[in-house]
């Protein structure tokens, strides 16, 4: 009996949690339960990121996604969950149609994911853990410290980091948040000041 590979064990555990609760999101018709299942599914996906060695991305998944975006979504659920909007049933025809489309899409993606030999081969991961936060931060600032030993000078010039996308995404986030605050502002009352007591 071979010893259990604990990396594989925890991968199976978190992928099972992520897939089961993602299925729960798709199949449940109660919007509050869907929000809760989505929290668990995304947290398990953060576990998958940790297991792939992406510690910083996993932490950001927990902090931004689970802690920020989903809290926003849950606020939306709480603001709109009234009476008939909590459970909205989907008709059986739409379920059948989407099951056919989703099943065929899943079959295509699975056959594509398992057909390449290079993706199937597994190897023993490096023994020492390498923290990625510093390298990711330098990459966002425009210096690829992980690519310094690239022998080809022409390829090295193309790996100039992500400073411009970082700036674009930060301005984009500012614009989007101002736009969202403008869109969701309370409506002005059409009452003149003379009518007020």
């Amino acid at each position: 009996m071979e010893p259990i590979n604990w990396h594989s064990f925890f991968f199976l555990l978190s992928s099972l949690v992520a897939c089961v609760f993602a299925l729960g999101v798709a199949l449940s018709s109660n919007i509050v339960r869907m929000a809760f299942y989505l929290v668990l599914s995304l947290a398990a996906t953060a576990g998958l990121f940790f297991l792939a060695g992406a510690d910083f991305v996993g932490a950001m998944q927990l902090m931004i996604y689970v802690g920020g975006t989903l809290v926003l979504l849950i606020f939306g659920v709480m603001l709109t969950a009234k009476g008939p909007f909590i459970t909205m049933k989907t008709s059986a025809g739409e379920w059948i149609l989407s099951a056919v489309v989703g099943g065929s899409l899943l079959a295509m993606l699975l056959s594509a994911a398992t057909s390449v030999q290079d993706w199937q081969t597994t190897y023993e991961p490096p023994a020492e853990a390498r923290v990625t936060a510093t390298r990711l931060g330098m990459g966002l600032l425009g210096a690829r410290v992980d690519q310094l030993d690239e022998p080809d000078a022409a390829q090295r010039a193309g790996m100039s980091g992500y400073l411009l996308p970082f700036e674009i995404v930060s301005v984009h986030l500012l614009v989007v948040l101002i736009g969202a605050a403008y869109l969701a502002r309370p409506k002005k009352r059409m009452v003149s000041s003379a009518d007020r007591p």
Partner: protein
Amino acid sequence: MNLLTQPIGVSHYLIVGAFLFVTGVVCMATKRNALGVLMGIELVLNGANVNFVAFGSEYLRPDTLGIGLDGQLVALFVIVLAAAEAAVALAITLNFYNNHATVDVDQANELKG
């Protein structure tokens, strides 16, 4: 169990990513609640993120094969853009709810020709 004793490869991550993607697509297609559609979008983005991280991981493939740190950087951008998208979509949903007193996407047919 074979899966428990063997190391994990990229294709295992791709299978999980494909499953998350398909559940997100089905969720987007079947939900009538606008916030349910939004949750489907989050699932789709997460499925794509799993693939990015898997291809960039040095734990699953040797350094020379993968896309290195680029996968994790793109995954970070996806997370930030998903936050922005959720904020705007939530603002639109709340505006729609204020104006029409419903969140049913089937009722949003004013622009129908």
